[in-house]
């Protein structure tokens, strides 16, 4: 690794983010508080209400997500089916519900913004469970498993691997035959995700789950711990970039009480797109895009709901498909490329790397801060995701929020020709926002969004000066986890059609972060960037820095199914 690249990697330790503090969010009801009904702040179609019973049936990892600093992924293989069902009955009460997690998240978030700290003093330990087609076949029946209309789920990740651009040569480390789990011969039946705020809490929870599973003849095929990066890189992935800033806002409410939406709404009713966004840059999406059988997104109209899907067994309603990809990251290769290409273009490695991502390492978007990693912008959750790509972004128009000074940052200018943010930049590839795409309007793009729940694994090297040879050689990467109601129309669509394509959704190269390509053995990927004088430059990505090493397609059922259909009581 060159000195320039090593220095850029080490300098990530100095990544600066100025968090908001003293902000008092509009109160949301406690999860159990009764209150009179009230009209929503922004008029629009009625959104579904998830009362206590239904909110207790939806897994909390799906909505709103665990977002814990320490997580463990247990890939399980069943032995005796009756034993597995008994184990599952014992596990069911431990599964975190949407209502529990949402209540925790509301309080956690309010305290974080009020106290201006990343980690308020609140802890909990949560559990989620999901099953492969193979696992459901065992627990319920082959007929029940085949009743899932999602063909990709029925096939499994391994069967779809080369379609996703993974290596076709078995000699390549990313080939499915080399995966640690989820390959042709080592597909898991179930995936248990445990999450905690403290490592010791996680360890004891994992031990309890392992003991219970093994006592019922269930083997742990593979276990992977995930953990957030330390210090200033908390919430970042291993290349050093803040991850998970832009998540869709799920429509729906817990009750008719004021402000009892699943996703809090912060836009004033007079804001230009108050019906489309929950907060600046956070698109509102109907829950059926993530939960089977719920009202989903219309292909043409971003506000009105479309009919729910019905191509699944009845007991699976309000469950969600889970895509897991264990992605190895070669951090040194990424930063070496950034250093080399940056030198060629006359920009710093961190600036060039940020153009590949579309955000600076601290999360500040290039679209709003093209030249510097603005620390205040990065830490302002009402501003750091507020930008369009094609047109000048208008001010967001927030409801009054006590203590929030307002969005003080320069609005994003239109960047139709990708002078600021390349079309291939990771965040522009996977969510083109206001742009047209190869599949139509921004209304179609909302059909492609997923709820991402990933977390890094392995020892960090970002921010480390003079790393030891052992640290350099250590494996690290991302446990990519995402929920959706159609694997083919969401995860596979975004991966194959956008990230892996040089011409979709816009001409300009492959996604330089997650893009995979294997066209008859040719794994060459390219990216178009602008030189300092604005000329388009085609760069060939010299090495692969993200490789799949395992995973699976799973289904996270409603909690009631754990003691119902999946317990053989369908």
């Amino acid at each position, binding site marked *: 690794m060159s000195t320039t690249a090593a220095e850029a990697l080490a300098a990530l330790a100095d990544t600066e983010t100025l968090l908001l503090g003293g902000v008092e969010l509009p109160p949301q009801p406690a999860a159990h508080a009764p209150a009179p009904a009230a009209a929503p702040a922004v008029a629009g179609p009625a959104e579904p209400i998830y009362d206590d019973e239904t909110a207790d049936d939806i897994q909390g990892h799906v909505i709103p997500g665990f977002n814990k600093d320490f997580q463990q992924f247990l890939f399980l293989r069943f032995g005796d089916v009756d034993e597995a069902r008994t184990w599952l009955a014992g596990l069911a009460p431990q599964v975190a519900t949407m209502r529990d997690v949402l209540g925790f998240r509301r309080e956690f978030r309010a305290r974080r913004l009020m106290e201006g700290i990343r980690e308020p003093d609140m802890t909990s330990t949560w559990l989620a469970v999901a099953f492969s087609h193979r696992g459901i076949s065992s627990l319920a029946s082959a007929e029940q498993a085949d009743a899932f209309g999602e063909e990709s789920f029925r096939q499994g990740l391994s069967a779809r691997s*080369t379609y996703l651009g993974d290596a076709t040569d078995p000699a390549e480390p990313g080939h499915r035959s080399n995966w640690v789990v989820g390959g042709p011969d080592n597909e898991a039946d179930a995936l248990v995700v445990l999450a905690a705020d403290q490592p010791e809490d996680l360890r004891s929870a994992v031990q309890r789950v392992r003991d219970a599973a093994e006592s019922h003849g269930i083997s742990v095929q593979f276990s992977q711990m995930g953990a957030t990066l330390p210090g200033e890189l908390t919430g970042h992935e291993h290349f050093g970039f803040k991850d998970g800033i832009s998540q869709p806002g799920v429509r729906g409410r817990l009750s008719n009480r004021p402000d009892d939406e699943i996703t809090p709404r912060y836009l004033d009713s007079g804001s230009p797109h108050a019906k489309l966004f929950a907060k600046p840059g956070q698109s509102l999406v109907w829950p059926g895009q993530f939960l089977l059988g719920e009202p989903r997104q*219309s292909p*043409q109209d971003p506000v009105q709901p479309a009919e729910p899907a019905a191509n699944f067994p009845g007991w699976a309603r309000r469950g969600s498909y889970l895509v897991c990809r264990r992605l190895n990251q070669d951090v040194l290769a990424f930063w070496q490329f950034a250093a080399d290409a940056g030198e060629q273009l006359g920009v710093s490695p961190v600036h060039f790397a940020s153009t590949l991502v579309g955000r600076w390492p601290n999360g500040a978007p290039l679209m709003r801060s093209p030249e510097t990693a603005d620390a205040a912008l990065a830490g302002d959750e009402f501003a750091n995701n507020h930008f369009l790509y*094609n047109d000048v972004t208008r001010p967001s128009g927030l409801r009054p929020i006590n203590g929030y000074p307002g969005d003080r940052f320069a609005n994003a200018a*239109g960047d139709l020709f990708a002078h600021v943010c390349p079309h291939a930049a990771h965040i522009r590839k996977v969510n083109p926002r206001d742009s*047209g795409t190869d599949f139509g*309007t921004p209304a*179609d793009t909302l059909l492609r969004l997923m709820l991402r729940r990933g977390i890094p694994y392995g020892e960090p090297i970002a921010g480390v000066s003079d790393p030891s040879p052992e640290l350099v050689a250590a494996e690290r990467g991302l446990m990519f986890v995402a929920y959706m109601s159609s694997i083919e129309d969401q995860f596979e669509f975004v991966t*194959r059609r956008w990230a892996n394509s040089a011409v*979709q959704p816009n001409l300009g190269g492959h996604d330089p972060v997650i893009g995979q390509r294997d066209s008859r053995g040719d794994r060459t990927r390219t990216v178009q960037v602008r030189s300092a004088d604005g000329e388009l430059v085609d760069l060939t990505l010299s090495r692969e820095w993200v490789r799949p090493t395992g995973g699976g397609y799973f289904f996270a059922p409603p909690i009631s199914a754990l003691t119902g259909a999946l317990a053989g009581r369908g």
Partner: protein
Amino acid sequence: MAIVQRFNTPGRLRDVSDDSPFLDAWQPVIDELIRDRVNLSGPGNSVDPSRVGLEVREHRTFTWTGFPRPLLMQHRDDRAAAFDEADRDRQNQPEYLEWFVTRTGGTISRVEFSCETPEYYKTLARTEPDELLALYKRVLRTSAVRREDLFTAGEYEPKNKWNTTKGIVHFIMQINSMKDLLGVQQEVPTAPDQDNPGDADVDVHDGYDPLPYFRPTAADARMNWDSWALTRTGQSVATIDAPGLYMIDWDDTGFEKPDGTPVADYWTVERGENGAALRLRYEVPEPEGFHVGDIRIGGRPVTTGGQIAEHIVMAAHIVVGTEQ
């Protein structure tokens, strides 16, 4: 000064000699389809590059997927139904890509794709009927085509048997044409009213404002959204010369032979060139010992031509600049 003096043929193909009357006849065909100047969205215009001077600053390529988006939306939960319906009738193929499937013993052995417009062939029929016949024979690789197969009472019949039941030469779907391509590029945003579309202008500041948008095809939305965003910057847009539609990319990632290994390159550009094909054939060479229908894409057997079309990316090109 106008940047186009004389519109070229799609792909700059030369099916006729340089002194053919076809070339003179082609110019007014295009000219009639482009208005001098249409205000689109914001201050910029769509202009006729043969009549309005333009200082070109950028080129823009619109890309979209060749498989019909309307069918995927109509059959959101049953993709097999969408593929079956697309193959059943070329009227179901509205994304400026049409295809013809040949089967051998019930298995797909060849899929031919075309994005050639009826206007080109009609003009050829009117000015160079002998060349039209020769072209049909060349494209279809058969000498069986007869002049009377192509003409009815002296008029060219686009839906003749060689361009319907026995093969494909050019578009027959009613909204796949040069007229529609250039027409879409001159459309303005209208009030989003599903029951009464197309009347009032709307106040558009960004890509969310024209929503909802009820035309279901990917191609129309793609061209509208890009053109409108471009003219909102104050610049004007115009078709490149030559106006036309192209297959810009085809992706066989994840296509596997019966033995599970990756396929070889079975694509043949029959008209146009790589990155700008007007006619494309997908067929396994005989020595390989299997057919297209024996290939699996992402683990799924190929039973329809649409499964191949899904991996073809279409394109149209424009220039962007300041009016002079």
